[in-house]
């Protein structure tokens, strides 16, 4: 845990990469705000891709919050999204409340189910938890399919739009706002004392327990937060696309998010957000080009996931980070090894 040491030498060495990171973040946010005005992103099709990319970016960030820090793979992530979406859609349709109110309500239901699932599974070994979240997701999916009175099942539930416009641009800024808020909030949590506990638990459960941390409390808290965020994204999904089918909860949707999270780099939060845009847009273009092979993009996701797991377990974030260090080290070579160890690399120890 070199990251938290406050010795002057370490913090001096840390300042370099941190300042670089801050500059990069500001630049990236500026670029993402300006992007819809740069061709080809001015077209509606391209702006739709941007909305989808921001949505999956946010999902992958919240997924990474559990996978990358407490080392629990939430294999039911998409189902928690779907739960949030259905909650809001049904309430808006039945009681005519504003879709904006759906956000807290969707977060609430997904968070509560996350809390219950967490309480049940997170006492168990990691792999039990992953498989149990999968079971819970499939049960939710089964409910969405079978409770046709409420969800209309596979026919799909029509959902009223969030904004009174067909233009994709305002939706993009709403989702971008959600993405940036997610990144900021989760990064602040990770940098706090609580985040330190998360990382301690993710790296060595026994040692964390021995140093007086009650792992279950932190595990459940982390899982609940991530699920509540999933609920928020689900609400956006429902009111943006205007239709909800049980498929949104499916395992392949979770795997799509999971693939982006791991390809982006586990345990970094920003890695999945950064990689989601180029990957999602590339995949959409591929889909358009090769409409006869709609399954191809999933093969590519699978292959990339395997390659990342085998050869670059720290993902794109790891690659960018090592480039950043090289950049940072060039002017003043003194910061060498201390600078390297000062960047947080939880979960990327492999």
């Amino acid at each position, binding site marked *: 845990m070199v990251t938290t040491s406050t010795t002057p030498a370490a913090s001096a060495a840390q300042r370099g990469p941190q300042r670089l990171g801050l500059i990069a973040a500001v630049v990236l946010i500026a670029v993402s705000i300006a992007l819809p005005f740069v061709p080809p992103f001015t077209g509606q099709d391209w702006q739709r891709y941007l909305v989808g990319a921001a949505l999956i970016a946010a999902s992958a960030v919240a997924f990474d919050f559990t996978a990358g820090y407490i080392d629990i793979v939430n294999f039911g992530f998409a189902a928690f999204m779907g739960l949030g979406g259905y909650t809001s859609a049904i309430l808006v349709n039945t009681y005519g409340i504003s879709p904006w109110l759906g956000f807290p309500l969707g977060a609430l239901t997904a968070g509560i189910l996350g809390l219950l699932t967490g309480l049940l599974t997170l006492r168990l070994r990691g792999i039990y938890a992953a498989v149990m979240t999968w079971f819970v997701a499939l049960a939710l999916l089964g409910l969405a399919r079978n409770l046709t009175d409420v969800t209309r099942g596979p026919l799909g539930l029509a959902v009223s739009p969030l904004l009174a416009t067909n233009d994709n641009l305002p939706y993009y800024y709403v989702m971008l706002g959600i993405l940036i808020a997610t990144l900021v909030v989760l990064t602040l949590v990770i940098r706090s004392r609580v985040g330190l506990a998360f990382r301690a638990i993710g790296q060595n459960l026994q040692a964390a327990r021995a140093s007086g941390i009650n792992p279950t409390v932190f595990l459940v808290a982390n899982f609940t937060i991530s699920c509540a965020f999933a609920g928020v994204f689900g609400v956006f999904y429902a009111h943006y696309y205007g239709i909800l089918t049980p498929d949104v909860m499916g395992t392949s949707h979770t795997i799509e998010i999971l693939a982006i999270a791991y390809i982006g780099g586990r345990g970094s939060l920003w890695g999945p957000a950064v990689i989601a845009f180029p990957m999602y847009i590339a995949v959409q273009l591929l889909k358009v080009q090769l409409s006869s092979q709609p399954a191809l993009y999933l093969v590519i996701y*699978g292959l990339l996931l395997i390659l990342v797991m085998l050869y670059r377990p720290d993902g794109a974030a790891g690659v960018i980070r090592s480039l950043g260090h090289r950049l940072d080290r060039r002017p003043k070579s003194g910061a060498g090894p201390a600078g390297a160890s000062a960047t947080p690399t939880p979960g990327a120890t492999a």
Partner: protein
Amino acid sequence: MTTATATNLKQVPLLRRYLNLTSAILVVAAAAMIVVSIQNPSLLVNTLATGGMWALMAGGLALVFGVMNIPSFVHGDLFMVGTLVALFVFTPIQSMIQDAPNDFVLKWLGPFAGMILAFILGAVIGVLMELLLFRQLRRRSREQWVMNTFLLTAGLSIMFENVAMMAFGNLPQGISRYWDVPPIDVLGVPVAMDRLVTFIVAMGTLAVFALFLQRSRTGRAMRAVSMDETGAQMAGIGLTRIYQLTLALSCGLAALAGAVLIWLTPFTPTVGASPLLIAWYVVILAGLGNVQGAVVGAFLVAMVQQLTGYYLALNWVDVLPTGIIILVLLFKPSGLFGSEVKGVWEQ
């Protein structure tokens, strides 16, 4: 006096061993099955036939976890490969049978060709998986091994499914029956030949599998590796070979199950999803890595499925077992048969 206390000491754990939640559930299950099978014998037939196949799936899944610590997500796709092999091998055989309806050897033994080839192809895929993926990962790092291999198999699973989708399309393709003969009378109940053979193949394969694990030199070596890798190496057991065999056997069994069951579950790219889920239900219910428990659990889950499908509706077949598993895990987090001893075939 001393002998009396000694026997008492032995009896206490024995009592605790048999008077517990696990046995209670088993007794209730057996009772339910008896009542139901008097009412509707075909449910019993279906439970035994499908339960046997789920046992092959779950047994293989538990074996790979026990020996190599890999929680496989790709197991269902080997089931899918099995249905494909059966489809492509049996379709020409079927037309040969139609051309020569009096060739009894062909008629009775022809269907087994696809099953055997499915097992072989499954085993080959298993060996390739070990060579190309798990060995590479093991060489690089054994940290977070369980999660990493889980994600590797998840990636592999998407590839299998979508390559199959690209190559063979999305539509179900199956074989309505292997043996075109009238149902056979078993204790007054008419049973379709395919169901009967499914059950016999399952029981036969399970018996061979059990004997192999318990009695053979190699099976014993597998169990030894699952209990203590270092100890196994001390005895001169090469881990690589055991890993290869484990994956070959487990993947072969999954493909065999797919080939045998194609009359019930025709090929689609995602036909393996449900068997994978069931195998995982069973393995979680029985305790990870416990092959013997997985075999018993498979019949339990098959029964729950049959009862759910019969009394509730087919749609609920995947929902109800989750509820049951959640209940079991609330009371017994290590599964029904899980124990402290890590091994693939507990005694």
